[in-house]
């Protein structure tokens, strides 16, 4: 039996998200009290320094965490449904490994002028990551698509092949880089939200809205797809169209996420899994609940990243796993007890 109804879980998460976000506003190198934060948020604060910290540094970062977290978790849920594999995640279609190569390539070749080099306000690394991720996904999709449709199994294999190739390219680039570049590459691969800006928030926000608007349309189709492609077709689902739409949206969502925040692991793989253990695999609830939970996890992880080694910061990606893994293990243990 499930312990929690989907509606109740979503209600809890909807309440929890703003609480965690507000809490996150108060923590960082400079600690700001609840009262000051609330005053500033509701527009009657007189302290401009506090306002600057809250609205120019912390708020964009928190919003970015919310959007990236929700996009990673929902695309994870969608990929697990599409591949009929609860252990799938967006990296399976090559988007992460491709993005990694794009970013490394920019770090190594653009080298010295990386700080200054920018395209409409986005760093070259971001642009490289997005192009790399999107290209790799298109390549994987193309390889798996023939006259009769897209084979999910071939996609899985093509994703592994492209991933291996990208891994090799990455190692090659690392081999030829100096110490400073090497450090940049590995920091980028840990995932970090410290580079948040309002521009990044806007782009990521638009992408997140697009995904949240379009994914629900295919929830029932994803449910049917869990039975198998032929079964889904017999239930009236246009399998090929649904597949193409979901893969393009996922490539876009994860590509932009990786571009603005680097490789933040764990959220896309484990968050949908945790939610599924709690409320079951129905995508009508799984997708929104995963999105909310992913946002909460990333905001919490990023808050911790800001405070554990004050005055320095840890990369966010390290904290998502440290926070999420024990919770997941606890849930698995509880399930074992139930059976």
């Amino acid at each position, binding site marked *: 039996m499930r312990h929690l109804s989907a509606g109740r879980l979503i209600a809890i998460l909807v309440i929890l998200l703003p609480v965690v976000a507000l809490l996150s506003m108060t923590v960082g190198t400079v600690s700001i009290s609840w009262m000051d934060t609330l005053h500033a948020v509701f527009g009657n604060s007189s302290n401009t320094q506090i306002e600057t910290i809250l609205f120019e540094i912390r708020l964009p970062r928190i919003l970015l965490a919310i959007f990236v977290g929700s996009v990673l978790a929902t695309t994870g849920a969608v990929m697990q449904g599409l591949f009929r594999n609860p252990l799938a995640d967006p990296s399976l279609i090559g988007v992460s490994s491709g993005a990694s190569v794009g970013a490394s390539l920019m770090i190594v070749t653009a080298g010295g002028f990386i700080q200054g080099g920018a395209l409409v306000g986005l760093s070259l690394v971001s642009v490289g990551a997005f192009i790399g991720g999107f290209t790799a996904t298109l390549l994987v999709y193309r390889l798996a698509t023939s006259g009769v449709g897209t084979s999910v199994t071939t996609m899985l294999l093509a994703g592994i092949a492209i991933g291996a190739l990208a891994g090799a390219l990455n190692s090659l680039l690392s081999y030829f880089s100096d110490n400073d570049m090497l450090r940049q590459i590995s920091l980028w691969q840990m995932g970090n939200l410290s580079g948040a800006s309002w521009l990044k928030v806007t782009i990521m926000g638009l992408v997140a809205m697009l995904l949240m608007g379009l994914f629900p349309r295919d929830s029932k189709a994803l449910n049917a797809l869990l039975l198998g492609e032929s079964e889904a077709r*017999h*239930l009236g689902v246009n399998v090929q169209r649904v597949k193409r739409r979901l893969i393009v949206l996922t490539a876009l969502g994860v590509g932009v996420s990786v571009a603005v925040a680097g490789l933040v692991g764990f959220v896309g793989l484990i968050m949908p899994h945790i939610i599924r253990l709690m409320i079951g695999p*129905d995508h009508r609830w799984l997708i929104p609940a995963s999105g909310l939970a992913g946002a909460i996890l990333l905001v919490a992880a990023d808050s911790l990243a800001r405070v554990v080694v004050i005055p320095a910061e840890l990369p966010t990606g390290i904290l998502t796993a440290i926070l999420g893994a024990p919770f997941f293990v606890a849930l698995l243990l509880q399930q074992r007890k139930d*059976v």
Partner: protein
Amino acid sequence: MTMLVSDISLHLSGFDLLRHISLEVEAGKVTAIVGPNGAGKSSLLKVLTGDMSPTKGDVYLNNRVLNQWPLLEKAQMLAVLPQHTLLNFPFTADEVVGLGRIPHQTGIAKDTQIITEALELVDASYLQRRFYTQMSGGEKQRVQLARVLAQIWQPSRFGEQFLVLDEPTSAFDLSHQKLTLDIVRQLAQKGVGVVMVLHDLNLAARCADNLVVIDSGVIAAQGSPEDVLTESLIDRVFGVKSIIAEHPITKRPLVIT
């Protein structure tokens, strides 16, 4: 109104899987397809349900080429139960049966009622809230049967309805085999055309109006079980010596090997 297979052939990777097969599945009748392993039964079902396009010939559903029907309209007329369904996600039984309502817009209340009734019909009410992933093979198959029944629970406004079953009884014990055949007969009485692949000739003889014997990709014989099941045919197709008797109660042919 019928499902019509008109002179189809299927070539795949250099092999002739089906050759010149013509078949008519009437609404309100039960058609059973039998034949040795590898004879092409599954290929025929795949072509019949649109999973594979025939190399030559056409399949018609209610006088219209099968793949020209809009997907949702087709799904309201034709339900298909595969031999195995691999479902690794922990849906409960009523959620699985609920998937059969995806092509319909009848509302939650009506769907819930249909789901309950379908589970009851296949003797699986007790499974309603249990996880599919934790069921036995026979329980899973009954839940899947309930799912396809829920899909064609009410008549469709687009045309006659058809149910295609691939070895529906293979995972069942005696009582559930009988239950399945009773359900199939009931559906036929309600006007649904049923096609099933069966391995057990006696089960096929007991419930089929039309028996189709496939061998090496061609139709070896078709007609009423009484006409089709002869000692020479069984020897020719299956290579097994047998005696054809009459069932003392149903008066249907009984194959004794």
